[in-house]
């Protein structure tokens, strides 16, 4: 059977997926789904494998989670549509692989990170950049070295001190 699935991968590296038609506050009598490596559940007595799953630290857990899914998937007939991803009639492993390839691997992976404080803004920045970034003396910046030709600068979260 094929189900529509909602999938959210958030900024804290948590993956949550669920079948909206079964997601009701009034239906909470749950039983474990078939997978043991992560949280997954279905309504008690349901004829399908799972209607929700949560994976903490998805990027780090991905390989172990996929091993289990691929091992068990051949005996689980459920398939999923995720229109937002352009995925239709795919098994769970294809959903997780898509999220991993699209969102996890495309995060810039720094080879070095350091926090610096702008002491004097020596490089004249265009007014538009100053207005949008509000970078000034004493602004703390995270420097991420992506590769030998690429530096990524970002203000430390919430830092807007004078």
């Amino acid at each position, binding site marked *: 059977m094929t189900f529509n699935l909602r999938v959210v991968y958030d900024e804290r590296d948590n993956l949550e997926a669920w079948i909206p038609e079964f997601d009701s506050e009034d239906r909470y009598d749950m039983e474990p789904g078939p997978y043991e490596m992560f949280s997954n559940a279905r309504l008690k007595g349901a004829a399908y494998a799972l209607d929700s799953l949560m994976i903490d630290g998805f990027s*780090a*857990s991905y390989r*172990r989670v996929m091993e289990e899914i691929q091992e068990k998937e051949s005996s689980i007939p459920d398939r999923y549509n995720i229109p937002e991803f352009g995925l239709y009639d795919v098994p769970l492993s294809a959903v997780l692989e898509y999220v991993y390839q699209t969102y996890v691997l495309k995060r810039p992976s720094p080879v070095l990170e350091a926090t610096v404080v702008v002491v004097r803004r020596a490089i004249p920045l265009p007014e538009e950049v100053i207005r949008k970034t509000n970078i000034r003396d004493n602004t703390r910046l995270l420097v991420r070295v992506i590769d030998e030709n690429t530096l990524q600068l970002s203000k*430390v979260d*919430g830092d807007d001190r004078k």
Partner: protein
Amino acid sequence: MAADDVFSLHNVDYSEKGMELEIIVEGQIRLQTVIFSALDYLGEKWYYTEEGHRYILDARSRRGRQRFVKGYLDRIPVIVRQPIIVGRDSDQPQNLFYYGAVAIEEHGFKRELLAVVMKKSNVNVVWDLYWVEKNEVPRKIAVLYRAKGAGRYLTGR
């Protein structure tokens, strides 16, 4: 309980409220603004922050079945101080999972397993709170501590 009640709990310390913390997560510094601090089951200090509070409210609003969790934020200090199970996932050594069985009014006062995710770094900060829907600790979590009665949440081990 309303979500705002985390600002007026009796069993936590608000003396550092508003203080900014820097927590290092995966090599990045993240600023956190303290709401309160408390101690865990081993007497170690941890913080509940505005950023974590907003994240939990947002994340648990996604799904109808998890929405009730927002009404149980006052249980976080209780779960962390008297957990039924504490565990760690070897894939994410920075996260410690404190599990507690809480009677949920919306579920006819059935005891459900809630997980508090604590980010352990230069400081300890609550990172998430959710209902473990299958009421069973996932097998990838290695158990560091278990209280009496924890066995029913550790089936299949």
